[in-house]
Structures are given as C-alpha cells and as structure tokens.
C-alpha cells in the first residue's frame, strides 16, 4: 500500500445479475484531491457505496492500510473513511450542532456523553464550514447549501483520513461551490485528508483535481492527471458531446467548452 490510502483490486460486482464492475482496479494515493467523473449511470456512486459496506464489496477487492476493508468493523471504518451523500434529508428537528456531533459517534465511548475533545472538534468543524453562527438552528430550516455544509462538517468532525463526497457542489451556486472546493483542497494541501469527489462539471474537475478517474459503463477508462485524462478525444467518446479544450494564458489545466449545437 505505501503511500496509498485505498486500493481497489479486481472488483467484480453485479446488480441484479447484470455485471456492472468487471475486474475494476484503481489506486487512491494519500493526500490528493481525486475526482471521479463519468456519465450518469457509469457506476460512480455505486463505487463510493462499496467503501461504506452499504454494498459490501467481494472479499479482498478493496484494501485499506490494514488490509481488507471488509475486516474493518463499521466503527473503525468510520474513523478511516467519512462520506458526504448526494442527497440526504433529515426530517427531524436536530440542531446543526447535533447533526455535526453525529460524526463523533465512532470515537465516543458507549454511554459516555461527548468529551471536551469531541466538543472542541465539533466546534472546529463548524468554524471551518462557516456554520458557527448557525449551530443552534434546526437542520430542517436550512437552505440546501447550508445543509450541504453541515454534512461536510459532520465528515470533518469524524476525523477520517479519506473523505468521499458524492457530487458535493451540484446544488450550490458558484460562490458556495468555490468555498467548499477550496476548503476541500486546503484539507488535502494541509495533509489532513485525502478527498475523493464525484463531480460532474469538468471545469471544476480541471481546476481542483490532482488525480482524475474517468468511468464509463462500469469501467475505468482513464486514470491520471487532469491533462492526461481530460483530452478532447476521450471526453467526446465518453460523453458523446463535441468539445473544445482551451488553455487560457497562465493556466496549466484546460477549460472544457462543450459545443452545444
């Protein structure tokens, strides 16, 4: 494993007898911003869900630092991997603080109330996500963007080294997109965590990623740096849309311009 935080080795998985993944392999290097891209239905979310054991992967298919992911008890797994779902409604009146505190579950001792350390970490996560002023508000009263930040704060409070996010910015305006993405990027730069994001917008991918994994119909069609993966030919082949790549002066990564007509 070495410098990798996770590794997928020959993952085979079928959905209702229809094979989705056949011998899928990938490595997730430590302290990198990794983007997973690909058309709808290409298996991105399914792949993330294997990491939570919500869809348990076959034995030995996903390896973490101490070996097979399946061998990790759920609590230990939570200390290693946190997850920000794409959509998650909480219909009960928990406060923002209580929602973020749920991220401490794996670290809590049974029956003990939250420790000083827990509270400090929750406050820090709230601070980082710009939620301190909302901490006593009910989660049900928040806007979509605010709630998304709560989910990310919960993941931060979890203190995991691998954060998986399923389209974390899809429902956000440009300002909040930038805010959340730069924050995630800074976690990577400060070597706090490895971030794996399922993203749709290729320009976002281009601007933030250290590593891009492109999927199509359950296969990884490309894995590498932005420049290696986001080529005109490949994007056109995978998305069936003609594109133009631009390299604005002073920028190494391309801008992807779809040709709509």
């Amino acid at each position, binding site marked *: 494993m070495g410098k990798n935080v996770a590794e997928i080795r020959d993952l085979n998985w079928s959905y209702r007898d229809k094979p989705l993944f056949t011998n899928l392999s990938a490595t997730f290097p430590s302290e990198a911003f990794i983007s997973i891209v690909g058309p709808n239905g290409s298996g991105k979310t399914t792949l993330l*869900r294997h990491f*939570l*054991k*919500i869809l348990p992967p076959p034995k030995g298919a996903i390896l973490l630092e101490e070996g097979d992911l399946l061998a990790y*008890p*759920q*609590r230990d*797994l*939570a*200390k290693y*991997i*946190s*997850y920000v*779902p794409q959509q*998650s*409604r*909480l*219909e*009960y*009146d*928990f*406060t923002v603080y*209580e929602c973020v505190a*749920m*991220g401490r*579950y*794996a670290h*809590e001792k*049974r*029956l003990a109330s939250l420790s000083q350390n827990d509270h400090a970490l929750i406050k820090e996560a709230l601070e980082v996500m710009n939620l301190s002023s909302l901490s*006593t508000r009910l989660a049900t009263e928040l806007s979509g963007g605010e709630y998304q930040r709560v*989910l990310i704060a*919960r*993941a931060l409070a*979890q203190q995991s080294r691998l954060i998986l996010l399923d389209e974390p910015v899809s429902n956000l305006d440009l300002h909040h997109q930038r805010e959340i993405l730069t924050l995630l990027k800074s976690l990577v730069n400060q070597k706090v965590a490895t971030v794996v994001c399922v993203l749709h917008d290729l320009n976002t991918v281009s601007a933030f990623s250290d590593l891009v994994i492109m999927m199509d119909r359950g296969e990884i069609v490309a894995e590498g740096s932005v420049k290696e993966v986001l080529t005109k030919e490949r994007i056109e082949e995978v998305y069936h849309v003609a594109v133009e790549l631009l390299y604005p002066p002073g920028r190494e990564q391309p801008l992807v311009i779809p040709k709509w007509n």
Partner: protein
Amino acid sequence: MVSKRYYSLIWITLLALLVAVVLISLALGPAGITVKQTVLILKEGPTYTPNSNFSSAQHRIIWYLRLPRILTALVAGMVLAISGMVYQALFRNPMADPYVLGISSGAAFGVAFATFLGLVGGATGVYQVPVAAFIGAIVATWAIFILSGGARRSPTVLLLTGIALNFLLSALMSLFMYLNRAQLHSIMQWSMGSFATANWEKLLIMASVSLVALLPITLLTRELDILLLDDASALSVGVSVRRIRLTLLILTTLATSVTVAFCGIIGFVGLMVPHIMRLVVGPKHKNLLLFSLLGGALMMVTADTLSRVVLGATELPVGIITAIGGSPLFIILLIRNKKEMG
C-alpha cells in the same frame, strides 16, 4: 437551546401527575374507598390485619384487583410508547407504531391461532400465550419489513402495507371466531384490549420480559438518533445499521408481543406518546425515551381509568378509548405528511 432544568421540571411534573392518577385510579370505583383509605391500604402491605380503617374486602380490592391492574396498564403504556418510538426511528416514519404496522395484530393472531389449534388455554396459558404472541408478532414484523422494502421506500407504502396486514389478520381472526364460537369471547378479548383480567402473576411475567427487552434499548439511544439519517450516512459515521436495526426490531417486538399477550391490542399509544413528547423535548432519543416512558404510563393509566368509569357500571375495552383519542391524531399527521411530501 432549552435548559436541562426545564426538562427536569417537566419530567417531575409528569411523574407527579402519574402518581396522582394512579392514586385516583386506585380509589375510583363502586367499592367506595377513599383516597385516604387507599393510601392506608397501600401502607398496610399485601397481607391484611383487622383494623378499623378499612375492611378485608376493601384491602383485597386494592391489593389484588386494582393495583395489579393499574401497574399492568402502567407497564403496557411504557412498552407501547417505547415500541412506537423505536419503530418510528427504525422505519424512519413518524407514523409507525406497533398497532398501525400490524405487529400487534400479528401477536394477537398468533394467540388466536394457537387457541384455535388448542395449543393454549387453561392454566398453562400464562407462559404459552406470550410465546404464541411473540411468534405471531415476529412473523408480522418480518412480513412488513419485506413487503414494504424496509426503511428505503416511501412512508406511505409502509403505512399501506401495515393497514393491509391489519385487514388480513383481523379477517383471519374473525374466521377463527366464526369457526369456533366457543372461543369467541377469548379471541375477542385480544382484539379489543383490556386490563380487566390482570393479576400479579401475569404482571410479573410481563414486567420482567419488558425489562429484559427495554433495558438494552436504553443503551442504544445514540444509535436511534443516527438511524434517522439515511442508511449510507448512518453506516458512514460508524453504526452497523443492519445489526442494530435487527436487534432493535427483535427487542421491541418481544416487548410488544408480551403486552399484547396479556392485555390484547391497544392501538395508538405508541403513535401518540412519542409524538407529543417529541414536541416537548425534541427528537434526541436520550430525552425522548425518558419522557416517553412516563408519558406512556400516564396515558395508559388514564385511558384505563376512563374505560372503567365512563359508562358507569359497564366497563369499556381500553382499546376503544385509545383509538378514539389516537385516530384523529393519525389523520392530522397523515394530512400534514401529505403536504410536506406533496
């Protein structure tokens, strides 16, 4: 944020109310025993020594008729309220409750079926009835979970499945009654709910099974909170969703079925109590559990007292009282839910 003192104050008020209702309920009835006499009789203990304050008959009424009955109602109320609270979290549905989901009917059906087959009855029934009820309830729980797609599908599917299951089971119970009129009364008793046949022996069994079932739940309140999230989120913060859900389902079903075995089907308490308490203390299960225990006891003892006195000499099945109180709330919730989801 509401202070802890506010919570303690409400809790103590509820406790005082419960004590008051229990005392009133003990004294109330045709035997003409005053509250003061009741207290003296309680102080006297379970064996009677002749005195000028109360008669042996009055002592017997309090100690061997009313007290076990009221305590049975108290335990049943606690069990049903906690069961409702747990089902609501497990199915992520604020309208879930052992009665609405058909789990109580499953337990009653288990008893009716065993009675029909001649497996229970007579003196041995005290132990066999709860077993039959538990088997019936577990099968019903399993059926509702499979048929409704667990917590994943829409809340409406779950409720409709429960209603359909209730239809089926009550039709089958009517069939048993029709086929065997000799057992009509004993089967009827389970489908209506009543504490009239309570005694110390049954109470002891019911209370100990309930304690065994409810105690672990008090250790799982944090997990109950997290189960309100979607499955992926609950797993990602470290809760073994499948295992915890199964454990909780078995424990609540056990507690519910032993209540149904001795008291019959009593609807809506499990729906109403956690709901009202959630308005008071919020959704955190650590608080909700403590308040639902008291609230359930209070509501059930009150309902049972009403069932004894509203019609004067004749006694109403307590299930009628709770249904009259509970179904309007159910309809209100249904309308509100529809608005939120539509």
